[in-house]
């Protein structure tokens, strides 16, 4: 288990849990970030990251990216 911030560019993961208050967790869920959902880390930077989830690209601040935990998904399409 690791956080979105620890993922590599292009890596896939499945969301396991989201840490934080009820309001924050619901807000993320409404944008498509729910447990069980697959995410791709599309871009990293010194600041925020970009993820793809449910066909949408979202920019997440580091703090948010750190509070979302994922497990690795291996389906042969992984790349570095």
């Amino acid at each position, binding site marked *: 288990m690791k956080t979105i911030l620890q993922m590599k560019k292009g890596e896939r993961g499945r969301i396991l849990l989201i840490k934080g208050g009820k309001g924050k967790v*619901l807000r993320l869920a409404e*944008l498509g970030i729910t447990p069980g959902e697959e995410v791709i880390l*599309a871009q990293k930077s010194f600041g925020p990251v970009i993820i793809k989830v449910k066909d949408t690209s979202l920019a997440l601040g580091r703090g948010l990216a750190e509070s979302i935990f994922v497990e690795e998904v291996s389906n042969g399409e992984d790349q570095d």
Partner: protein
Amino acid sequence: MEKTKIRVALAGNPNVGKSTVFNQLTGLNQHTGNWPGKTVEKRVGYIEKDNYLIEITDLPGTYSLTAHSLEELIAREFIIKEKPDIVVLIVDASCLERNLYLLAQLLELHSNIVIGLNMIDVSSGRGYKLDIEKFRERLGLPVIPMVASKGYGLEELVQQIIDTYTNKTVSIKIEYPELEDVIRKLESLLDSDIEGYPTRWTALKLLEGDEVTTKICKEKIKNWESIRQIVEGREDNPVRVASARYNWIKKILDGVLEKPQRQVISWTDRLDDVFTHPIWGLPIGILIVALIFYLTYTFNELINEPWERFLGFFESGISIIFSFLPEWWRNLIIGGIWQGVSTVLSFTPLIVIFFLFLALLEDTGYLARLAFVTDRIMHLLGLHGKSFIPLVISFGCNVPGVMATRTLEDDKDRVLLIILDSFIPCIPRILVASFFLGVFFPKYAFILLLSLYGISLFSVIFSGLILRKRVFKTSITPLLIELPIYKLPTLKIVLLYIWDKLKSFLIRAGTVIIFLSGIIWILSNLPSGDISNSILAQVGKALLPLFSKLGFNWQLTVGLITGFIAKEASLSTLGTIYGLSGSELGSALLREISPITAYSFVVFQLLYIPCAATVATIYKETNSLKWTLFALSFSLAYAYLFTFILNKILMFVVR
């Protein structure tokens, strides 16, 4: 014959082309206002077809109807309180799953829903196969495929609105198998609709932990305690509701939407490799913004002369028309009111050009990337990347810059950003500065102008740090923003965007500036008609002890007073006082004040106070006298201290 009116609410997520649909349908036949008591913009437009007058209210773009933000509250209250005949939901066919989340909530509030399935071209470009007939069947709702930017599907949408109005649809209830037990329990405890909201909706909102609904129920329901126990029984209730909704969506889309095994690498992906690059993204962003400034000033230079001549021509026309009036009145109209009007008009080309570029950035989808690449540096100011855009707009004019802070969700972030906005040198301030620097330091004018941008940047960072630590003691809200796909801009959308911004600038700035210009003219002409012993001059002389510490004389002080009306009014006031203009005014100033005073004056007028139109906007946007006064006194005190110290250092160095 009287036409039948159909009231339509237009709903949808941000970035799904909802505004495009609205603009394409209603064109210029729309008007903008604010939602009652709110600072969020409300747009209403009209279409006539056959015997119907269709009134479309553009609801704010939202992902959900939970009371997270003002926009979401406005959208749901409109649907419940105003009871539109039909709700049109615009969805993005290329990311249906997330878009249908809003539909699930709408279905709990309203039964006559028409779905505009927009961007089907993007969806098929990604290789998605969508069985629209099956989709309609599953939902039991009318679905109109559209490509709104190309005008495809608009007529069908209007026809569908009329059809749905004449044969109402049957209301649909979504079953959430995993939640029905707890919903039923809550419904029995609620027993009647709460403030017009159906019990099923209220039950779900309570489970989601919706603050507004919770507060109302707490006050109105007798057995609140038993409700509270159910709602708070499980910590994960909000996520359970969200997951239940997505499960319903998955069932709807199963066999309706087919995605290819391998995702096509889209244009957006390729462009994002460049524009959001961890190293190059930020320099590219800064380059683009710099290019916009460069082009804005260059085009303005070209247009400026003919435009000024046109305004001059107009002025002589007015003085002929009013030649029948006594001289005093004629002077008030020309020297006071027309001066204000022409001030506002002289900025119009600049504003139009600047917003043309901004509209292009927004309509192509680049603006959201700018928030991403600047997020890191914006943390220096105690803000996140979304705040970058209002600051950029403020370089053109602070009024729309302050209005653009609306995209920030957190109230404290907004007030902080509004205060920082006013340290950004708008174009008029730069015009005044250029005049002084050109007269006093002809060789170094450009370098010194850059030093002013440096001072302004320093002031923004310094104030951001201080205010975040001492006044707004909350932590920085993290960035969370959707990056829409890139697309080619649409002419109509760009033009409407410019028109919208220009209109609000003309109304907001126009009324304040024209009114105050009249008053200043009166104050500078009473009692004798000679400005040097007028009321205005008396005020300037009374304030002199304060400003002489910065090296200013009473003439400059009066210039600062009128500069509050509109920054460049400082120059015309000095012109009136000395009875000179242009280069003659320049040489008079050279004799009267030292170069250090001139530079101090330029720095002070850069920082001291946002202009009257901006202050009026700050009041309107914050809806708080306290914050408006705070913004005013903060910038005034900061400017005074900064200039004082700078002045002393310069004196010391020169000596």
